[in-house]
């Protein structure tokens, strides 16, 4: 955690110093372009890299009744059998975090007694976090587009519906900070989650928190030169960047942190954004027995131990037991069936009748 915290502090200091010594162009133009290029290139690279590995087997995690007999009701969303049912499952997964919605919490009590309760907090705050993030990104499109599309105005209107304060408070800002804080606190307060967390989990949280904090400071508390900012951002979007006037360090810190996030994104767990679409347990139909699935590296040379070899080894026994044969016994019965191949012709193989308790459980003990 401390590494992650220090890294974010360092990023803030770098941007602050940079703006103090007048590296406006570097932090306002060069870094953002570079970051965006790395983000795009990195994201595409990662997805292609994943996609290069084939999906040899169709392994959906079935979470409901499969399609079987006509009169058995199939669970189309949790056990999809067709492409469109898979689309349904994926949409719910991506837009509603359906699997996380199923979350439970287990406790053990005297007895012993295990108790499972519903646990939807992570789902709720996770969903809030992601949707607020999306809305905030969309709102920021105002800075890059001229004229500002109408839908952005609508988003802003609904986001500020309660008309609190001047400038109007966006609910998403508040919820976003709350959600990030929740996600951080559960990492520190829940022992299990704390134990599994490390720098790569804290860093994005700190970074995003810092981005939100600097943004909120600029909007509500420390006014910056919004006209110059818009000039810069529209310039960036139209590939004719120009910086005029003194925008202020806060803006450069904010922008640099965003640039850092963009660079960090493709090389971190944040790629779950892309990965969720490629997860074979979710994006495949459970139609394994219905439709052939091809494994590109299937090795046809792997063949079962042949029946012929099996019969060769056991022909005498089979004949004695009246089991049909492919090749009848030689007139002169072979001596003993070949035993050299035998891994362990253990007692189990010879047991004449069901030895009930010995059971299938422990062949190893039958030595």
């Amino acid at each position, binding site marked *: 955690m401390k590494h992650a915290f220090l890294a974010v502090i360092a990023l803030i200091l770098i941007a602050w110093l940079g703006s103090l010594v007048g590296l406006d162009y570097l932090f306002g133009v060069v870094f953002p372009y570079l970051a965006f290029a790395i983000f795009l290139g990195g994201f595409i690279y990662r997805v292609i890299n994943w996609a290069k590995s084939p999906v040899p087997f169709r392994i959906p995690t079935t979470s409901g009744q499969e399609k079987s007999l006509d009169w058995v009701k199939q669970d189309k969303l949790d056990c999809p059998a067709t492409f469109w049912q898979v689309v349904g499952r994926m949409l719910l997964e991506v837009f509603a975090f359906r699997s996380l919605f199923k979350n439970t919490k287990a406790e053990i009590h005297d007895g012993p007694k295990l108790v499972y309760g519903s646990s939807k907090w992570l789902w709720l705050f996770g969903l809030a976090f992601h949707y607020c993030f999306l809305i905030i990104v969309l709102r920021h499109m105002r800075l890059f587009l001229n004229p500002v599309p109408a839908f952005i105005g609508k988003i802003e209107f609904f986001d500020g519906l309660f008309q609190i304060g001047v400038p109007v408070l966006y609910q998403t800002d508040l919820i976003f900070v709350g959600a990030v804080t929740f996600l951080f606190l559960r990492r520190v307060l829940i*022992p299990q989650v704390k134990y599994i967390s490390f720098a790569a989990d804290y860093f994005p949280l700190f970074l995003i928190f810092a981005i939100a904090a600097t943004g909120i400071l600029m909007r509500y508390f420390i006014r910056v030169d919004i006209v110059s900012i818009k000039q810069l951002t529209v310039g960036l979007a139209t590939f004719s960047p120009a910086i005029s006037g003194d925008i202020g360090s806060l803006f450069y810190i904010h922008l640099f942190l965003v640039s850092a996030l963009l660079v960090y994104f493709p090389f971190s767990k944040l790629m779950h954004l892309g990965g969720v679409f*490629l997860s074979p347990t979710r994006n495949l139909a459970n139609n394994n*027995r219905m439709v052939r699935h091809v494994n590109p590296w299937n090795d046809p040379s792997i063949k079962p131990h042949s029946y012929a070899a099996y019969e060769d080894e056991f022909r005498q026994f*089979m004949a004695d037991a009246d089991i049909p044969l492919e090749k009848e016994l030689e007139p002169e019965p072979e001596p003993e069936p070949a035993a050299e191949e035998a891994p*362990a012709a253990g007692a189990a193989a010879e047991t004449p009748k*069901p030895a009930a308790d010995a059971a299938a459980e422990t062949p190893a003990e039958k030595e």
Partner: protein
Amino acid sequence: MADTKVDQMSVNVVKEPSMMTGAIPRKEWLDTTVTFKPGNYCYPAKKSIVEYLDKGLPGLFGVPREWTVESDDWKLPENWVEIILQGMRERLDKFRSFKVFMDICVRCGACADKCHFFLGTGDPKNMPVLRAELLRSVYRGNFTKAGKILGSIARGREMTFEVLKEWFMYFYQCTECRRCSVFCPYGIDTAEITMMARELLHLVGVGTNWILEPAANSNRTGNHLGLQPHTFKQNAEFLLDDIEEVTGVRLNSLNFNRKGAEVLFVIPSADVFAEPGIFTFMGYLLIFEHIGLDYTISTYSSEGGNFGSFTNNELMKKLNGKMYAEAKRLGVKWILGGECGHMWRVVHQYMETMNGPPDNLEVPRSPITGTVFENAAAAKMVHISEFTADLIKHNKLKIDKSRNDHRVVTFHDSCNPSRGMGMLEEPRYILQNVCNNFYEMPENTIREQTFCCGSGTGLNTGEIMDLRMRGGLPRANAVKYVEEKHGVNMLSCICAIDRATLLALMEYWNPNVGVCGISELVGNALIMDGEKERDQDLRFEELLGAGQAGESGNNEEGE
């Protein structure tokens, strides 16, 4: 039986310092190492077994040798680290699941308390997320920039002997049950990760005897018990005597390796060998006789279960290949499969891809009801519960439900049919039609949320009993709940491993609850032509109100 007495265990799981009881480990997990001691590891594979497997699939099972787990010298090949890393590289290129799952976990922790081994042990490394991190840390340390540069800050690490020991410990405390995968927002499936880790472990010759010996047996004799053809046949035929004694009917239809039969029936071999599987087997035979099915059982392909699937995809394919090969040799039209969990994971999700297409087979069609099993149109293999449910739906079985009145039944969804296939309703439909007392366990413990028996994927060996009883605790606890609430005395299931492991689990945690397959209950309830008055069930146990059953139930049919 387990080393720890149940009274003591009941206290331990609640009071001992563990992550389940609120204790917080002092050390970061990267700084902890594992210590093997009797009871916490499975015995390594014998040299002769590895030699045998190595002949069929060279190089995949390491150098055959004798070694001991507790020793600090596992007699690994000199370049074992290289073998593991090269193996990882290959698998990252072969399995998208592996690659994506290594990269996208955000460690949200939703999976943490979903694992039965975590619930029963409280060991942090049994949280699915941390189990995956055991492998992921090596991935980061060797295959990602951040891990290479930042090392332990980015939780990247080198492949060391301590790491290998950790893998052997914890990838054999995962039963690939996929429960965590249901809750993961990205569908990360620990079963996939455990499968990869076990493939890697086998590459350097680290495997357990309880898995590899049955696998070798399956390859050679056709079944994991190593029953040779004549013994297999004798065992099965022996059960005809029991059936005759209970029902008064001598079944004529049981036959082996018969060419030209319509259906090849493949079972988990334990069903002809061990209680309570043998009662399930009797149930199958009674159903087939009742409807006059033209079937045969093969001694060559006498194992539905696939111990190869607990090692690597190659051996899984090799063992599974027998089913289609035998179906072709015998010239059957389609294959029917018995009650077995991981067999059905393989049959449903791998078989057709690995060993298909089975061009010589036809789309399965029930000769009794005419139902075409479109859901098996490509793989040509039908589950006995699908088949039986269809029979009941079409009123093709004469059933006297009251013959199961001495049973108060609950149903354990086996991991693989529920989360690797999606067969949830058929067994329930059958149960509702063959017994009067059927109660579900709490909803968080059944269907897609079902709990593993605690001993799947080749962990049902005697040397790790404590661990198994802990891993099975969530399942046992849910059974206890319905035992106390509804008087449940019979835990039914559709899995042969369950029939072996739940038996031990029930003996330990809920000694008054028995274990049975669904088909056993069907067998009890079936009214056979020419049967005598039934006063015992297939276990020779007295029916409730024996003597009057004939009057009350004779007319009850299907629905």
